[in-house]
């Protein structure tokens, strides 16, 4: 590769990725990293791959891995693919992220960054995945829209597939592909848009521990979810979860979609009708509120922009619950770290998915 070709295929801020090494010498160079300092412990519980087709994401992802490795020991593989260059090439860099644990031992996680150009069949298998640590599960975070690289030969190898549907333009089409993979190979999907709803769900569940609140559920008249427009899928997932857990069925087609959200109608087990809406609030928190109203009763979980807590409220005549609780992070690295901590096969997400997809298609119809 001559100098001009090299310049053309270099990712932005490559100097932040560590030492550039030939692909064939990655493992040897990694071993050399450890030989220079006996005081460090090399740790990994998972293989964590971060894939992006946006230039500049390799350096950003290296920062994300630095954050994640504070809590989750892993071997990180950063994969950046430049789709604008046709010529097939691979360049690689290695580094280690080290953190002091309890102020004592320095624990390090290895990172290998790949910059790919062009299209080469089998490259994931023979170049990238050759550097997975054996026996450890592969968590694969696909950033941005799914491309042709998302195919069966890739997702069959993945133990947990992480996405953030908030990034997607055509959510219906993208989720259609993800759902096909779920049905085909039982892909375990962890959508950060879903992770973002965790503490809202926990807060709602917690409020319904209250006996008066629990009794009011049967008489629910409306559910309103307020989100920032970019986080529309989080709003739909939250609504879908609520409807699924309450045992409601879709009642009729979308009532209204004025570009500022959507309105829906569900039928309860007892035959009552519930109006539901997902409303966009410009400049608001990613998820700003879920509000459930029954006769004379209001249950609300809300968050202000930048707020560090969720506000839990249940208001009925002569009975008020007013508390603050934890909130989900606005940062993806922290969301992923939280998701990794919870582990599991995401059964609740799978249970919610059909209702969510039905809401998506509802909108699309």
């Amino acid at each position, binding site marked *: 590769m001559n100098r001009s070709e090299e310049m053309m295929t270099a990712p932005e801020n490559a100097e932040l990725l560590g030492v550039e090494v030939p692909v064939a010498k990655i493992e040897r160079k990694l071993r050399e990293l450890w030989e220079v300092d006996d005081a460090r412990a090399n740790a990994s519980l998972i293989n964590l791959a971060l894939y992006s087709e946006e230039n500049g994401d390799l350096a950003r992802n290296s920062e994300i891995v630095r954050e994640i490795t*504070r809590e989750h020991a892993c071997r990180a593989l950063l994969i950046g693919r430049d789709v604008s260059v046709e010529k097939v090439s691979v360049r690689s860099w290695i580094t280690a992220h080290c953190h002091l644990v309890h102020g004592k031992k320095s624990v390090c996680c290895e990172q290998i960054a790949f910059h790919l150009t062009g299209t080469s069949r089998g490259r994931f298998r023979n170049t990238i995945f050759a550097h997975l640590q054996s026996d450890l599960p592969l968590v694969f975070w696909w950033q941005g829209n799914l491309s042709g690289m998302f195919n069966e030969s890739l997702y069959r190898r993945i133990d947990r597939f992480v996405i953030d549907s908030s990034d997607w333009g055509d959510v219906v089409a993208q989720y259609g592909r993800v759902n096909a993979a779920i049905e085909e190979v039982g892909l375990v999907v962890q959508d950060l848009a879903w992770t973002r709803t965790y503490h809202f769900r926990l807060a709602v569940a917690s409020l319904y521990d209250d006996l008066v609140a629990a009794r009011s559920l049967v008489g629910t008249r409306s559910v309103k979810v307020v989100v920032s427009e970019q986080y529309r899928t989080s709003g739909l997932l939250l609504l879908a979860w609520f409807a699924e857990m309450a045992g409601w069925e879709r009642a009729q087609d979308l009532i209204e979609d004025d570009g500022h959200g959507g309105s829906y109608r569900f039928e309860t087990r007892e035959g009552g009708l519930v109006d539901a809406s997902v409303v966009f609030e410009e400049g608001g928190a990613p998820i700003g509120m879920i509000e459930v109203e029954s006769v004379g009763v209001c249950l609300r979980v809300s968050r202000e922009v930048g707020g560090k807590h969720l506000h839990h409220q249940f208001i009925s005549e002569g009975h008020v619950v007013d508390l603050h609780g934890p909130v989900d992070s606005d940062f993806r690295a922290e969301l992923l770290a939280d998701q990794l901590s919870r582990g599991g096969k995401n059964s609740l997400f799978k249970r919610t998915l059909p209702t969510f997809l039905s809401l998506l298609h509802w909108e699309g119809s």
Partner: protein
Amino acid sequence: MSNPFREDLVSRSRPEACTVVIFGATGDLTHRKLIPALYNLAIDGELPTGVKIIGFARRDKSDEVFRDGLKELNREVSRNGHDEEIWGDFENMVEYHQSEFQDADGYRRLAERLDAIDAERGGKGNRLFYIASAPEYFDDVLEHLKSAGLNESRDGCWSRVIVEKPFGVDLASARHLNEVVNQTFEEKDTYRIDHYLGKETAQNIMVLRFANAIFEPLWNSRYIKQVQITCAEHLGMEGGRGGYYDKSGALRDMVQNHLLQLLSLVAMEPPTDLSADGVRDEKVKVIRSLRQWDSPELVEENVVRAQYSAGHVHGKSVVGYREEDRVDPESMTETYVALRCMVDTWRWSGVPFYIRMGKRLPKKATEISVHFRPAPNVLFNATPGETDEGNVLVIRIQPDEGISLRMVSKIPGTTLRLEPVKMDFHYSTSFGKGSPEAYERLLLDAMAGDATLFARRDEVEEAWRFIDHIQRGWHDSGEGDELSMAEFVAGSWGPEEADALLEKDGNSWRRL
């Protein structure tokens, strides 16, 4: 009424909203452990909405003064730090109830107060009574709870009791206490807390054994030579602890509960299911199978007790036990005990389980080591001078929780030299996030009605039966004399007699 939104949200039994009444609310346990545990559950969003906490104690103080005291300590010890906003909500759940433990009127007022809270909460009347008072008040508290009708489950709601250790001081007192408890609460509503069982690594013993296929086939007398359970503490009788300890001793304070619980987890058969009784049925069989050291001769042969004399710990000179504050200068209370236990079951026939517990040892460490038999004395092991040490699996309970496996490896070089090497797994380096405190898990389990990690009546009584024989052997050897008390220098690993105990079997204590 079930809450559909709790379904699947967390993968365990669901804790239910309740009022937690803590007896002995001005004590150290409440301030340092229980309230920070409840607060951390609130911070993690795990505490059900509607939980109320009532501190019941003798001292006269207002809600505000009580809360301020709790807040001060919480700032110091809370695992997740202290958030003023969440504390603000949390402290609104906390109230103080002043009463003598023997005052019937105090319990009647408590009942009225609980009814008012239930009414405010919409009629849900779950109650969790936590008896953290001094043991001499256990009877009073339980009897008055019954007289006030607070033990009764009403309208589909539950009423449960958590009892702190010490659960009796011998078999007779434990039985008496069990009688009193069971006259007040049903066994299914009784939670005898042993915080060791709430520790992450203690819970992991069953996972290690039964979720990994490689260990269970080897987990028997054919492959295991000995098991050692060590609980070492470098502290002595700081903070006036001598008064309590001198009446108790290492055997009753630690072995009867925590260490026999660990032993039962290591030695139990696989339970048929993970229900509370499924697990506890198997654990109690182990305790019941312990060979009884029921004569002074057997006690002398299998148990060593000792006290520390003046020495140095962590570079500081320390006094001997009998010179400690609030300790009888002629005390015959052991600060160190080493036992050789035999579990008379098919699986463990002939395998000694050694337990040692001591104060003023060189460091703080609790761990279980499983020593496998060495490989046959052929091939590499036949080489003169080479190691014949077997593999050792170590489960570290605290600190530095983790698991390690010692195995033999060839030392690089042109000659054949074998040395033991260690494969190590540390919770702290593998999982960056700190584990919840044992009390967090246990309080949540009690709210959820899951008694798996709590001791059952028969477990407690069987453990006391075993301990009582040793106590009798020490104090009632038939000639009016006590069996001898060994001595060791503070900061050493215990008396020579404890080493000799293992040497008789051709074993030695693992070096920590």
